[in-house]
């Protein structure tokens, strides 16, 4: 299934993500990595969990307000529920051992030229590309 090419909205969204990453550093002194922030509210819960919970709540509430105000956000899941559960488990294990994901390594870590983050980003982008190719063009979808 195709999706519409949205360069302006995507660039605007990307700039907001970068703005949030910058602001979290200047105000809270923290990396805006979703894996790290979420990991800190899972057991064993980190002692600084309140700001983490607040960040997560804000990240969920804002899109909710946006769509409730009459705006639309494209959303479609082109895979089965079973694949969604397996994908979720694999993502959870991978980001924990890889110490980060697209936001932490791909944006914040790359922006400060961390060798670990550059390596992690190259590895997961290639791994994702290979997986999508295998799933769609060899298995024919899941």
């Amino acid at each position, binding site marked *: *299934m195709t999706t*519409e*090419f949205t360069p302006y909205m*995507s*660039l*605007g969204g*990307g*700039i*907001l*993500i*970068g*703005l949030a990453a910058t602001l979290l*550093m200047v105000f*809270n*002194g923290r990396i*805006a990595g*979703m894996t790290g922030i979420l990991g800190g509210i899972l*057991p064993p819960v980190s002692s600084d969990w309140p700001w983490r919970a*607040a960040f997560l709540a*804000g*990240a969920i509430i*804002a*899109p*909710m*307000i*946006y769509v409730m105000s009459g705006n639309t*956000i494209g*959303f*479609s899941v082109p895979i089965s*529920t079973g*694949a969604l*559960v*397996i*994908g*979720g*488990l*694999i*993502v*959870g*294990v*991978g*980001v*924990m*051992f*890889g*110490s980060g994901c697209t*936001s932490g390594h791909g*944006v914040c870590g790359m922006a400060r030229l961390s*060798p*670990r983050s550059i390596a*992690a980003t190259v*590895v*997961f982008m*290639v*791994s*994702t*590309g*290979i*997986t999508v*190719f295998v799933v769609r063009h060899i298995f024919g979808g899941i």
Partner: protein
Amino acid sequence: MRILSALVIGMIFGIGIAISGMANPAKVLNFFDIAGSWDPSLIFVMGGALITTAIGYRLVFGTRSTPLFEGAFVVPGNRIIDRRLVLGSATFGIGWGISGFCPGGAIPALGLGYSETFIFVGAMIGGMVLARGIDTAVFKTAKA
């Protein structure tokens, strides 16, 4: 103040993710499907976020020695590329390629209210807790 700032900044992050298309698995998967229904939009998300953050961090670290609401900047100092980082990242890519959801895309997507996101996030949190359990039991290197 640090709680309030985290809430507001989380909102900016969430709206950025939502309008960028990162919260839409179909769009994310199409970005990686160069051999099929390719949608290059995510280059603009990654590029916009990366350039803005690089400039922003340069300004922050160039002008301040401490953040406004905390005592110190907390930035990872580890620079060693080890097997754990590479295998973990490769594993994450497999899951991202299957589902089209990454953690930063999925959490804001919860606010859109679709059941698929709740199923994914539940499984992802299960995977994170499982990984931490394996880590503590097998490698004894888990960090709080």
